[in-house]
């Protein structure tokens, strides 16, 4: 029964996908290949598509595989299954969170995790920016990305320092799309 397979397969992905999309790719690969839903090549292609479209990679993959297996209903079932575990867990956590967070041990753990995550996120972001400006490990320097990076940085700094207004995340995406479509024309 394809619906049951889709549901169970993606429920497993949703349950055990810790640590964000990239941590989950090995698991997704495992499940997807074991059912024969995609082969290595189409999976790599789909990961690229999921990255260049908005939304979490896991959800995008579920929707795509669901559609390719059994049309609209398949897409709904697979997407629902991949979302369900985190939905349920967070609902449960929210219910007990205030009590849970007051425990001194939990506070101690959170006290370590918060600065840790802040460091991880900053490092991830800066490395992504840097990798557009400096060619690492034999990679070719992409002049276009370098120019876009500088233009984007200039726009962000200009609006913050001169206009005294922080650009919203949505406007940064829109501005970058505009800059990209202009710069890549040359």
């Amino acid at each position, binding site marked *: 029964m394809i619906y049951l397979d889709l549901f169970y397969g993606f429920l497993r992905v949703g349950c055990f996908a810790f640590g964000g999309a990239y941590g989950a790719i090995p698991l997704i690969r495992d499940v997807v290949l074991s059912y024969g839903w995609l082969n290595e090549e189409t999976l790599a292609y789909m990961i690229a598509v999921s*990255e260049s479209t908005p939304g979490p*990679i896991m959800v995008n993959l579920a929707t795509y595989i669901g559609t390719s297996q059994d049309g*609209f209903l398949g897409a709904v079932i697979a997407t629902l299954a991949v979302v369900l575990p985190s939905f349920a867990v967070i609902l449960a956590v929210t219910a007990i969170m205030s009590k849970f967070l007051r425990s001194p041990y939990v506070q101690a753990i959170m006290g370590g995790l918060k600065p840790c995550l802040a460091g991880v996120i900053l*490092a991830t972001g800066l490395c992504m920016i840097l990798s557009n400006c400096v060619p*690492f490990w034999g990679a070719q320097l992409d002049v276009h990305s370098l120019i876009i990076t500088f233009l984007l940085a200039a726009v962000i700094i200009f609006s913050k320092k001169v206009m005294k207004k922080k650009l919203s995340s949505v406007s940064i995406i829109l501005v970058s799309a505009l800059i990209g479509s202009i710069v890549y024309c040359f």
Partner: protein
Amino acid sequence: MKKNIIAELLLNFMKIGLFTFGGGYAMISMIENICVEKKGWITHDDMMNITVISESTPGPIAINCATFVGSRQAGMAGAIAATFGIVRPSFIIIYAIAVFAGNFWQLPFLSNILGGIKIAVGFLIADAGLTMIKKMKKNKKSVGIMAFSFLTIAAAKLLSVNISVITVMCLCAAFSLFTCIISGKNSGTEVKK
């Protein structure tokens, strides 16, 4: 009133879902921007807590955050509205791609736009990190942990060594728990006001 908040949750999370390129960390900046700064639905401290919880529970951060904000605002119905909202844009887009297929992102016009957006993602993620650090309560321990995780991840990325974020997080949590038990004192988890 109650209907309004449900509609607003749905609408705002659809907006977040539509503009989230580049996965979890980039989304934190977007959610912080809309739910904390603009709407005041949750505080920065809540946001920090839910980010940490998201990283240690299964599932995409986006879904976790949406469920959390929704249930805080309007219980079960809110949680469903926000989660449904954040999933819907990508569902529609991917469904369309799967049905009409094709390698759409190889169209020169679209690939130019996506090339630009790809670069913005780094800025959004760095911004989320900076905001967290700015609002973090700073003492020797928290700054030390922050520096440790920053340097570890940066070094791993630059040297292309594979160190999982979860390993780093476990180390930091264990260290913090250990020092708290030894000193018998509570660590500062509150946000600087």
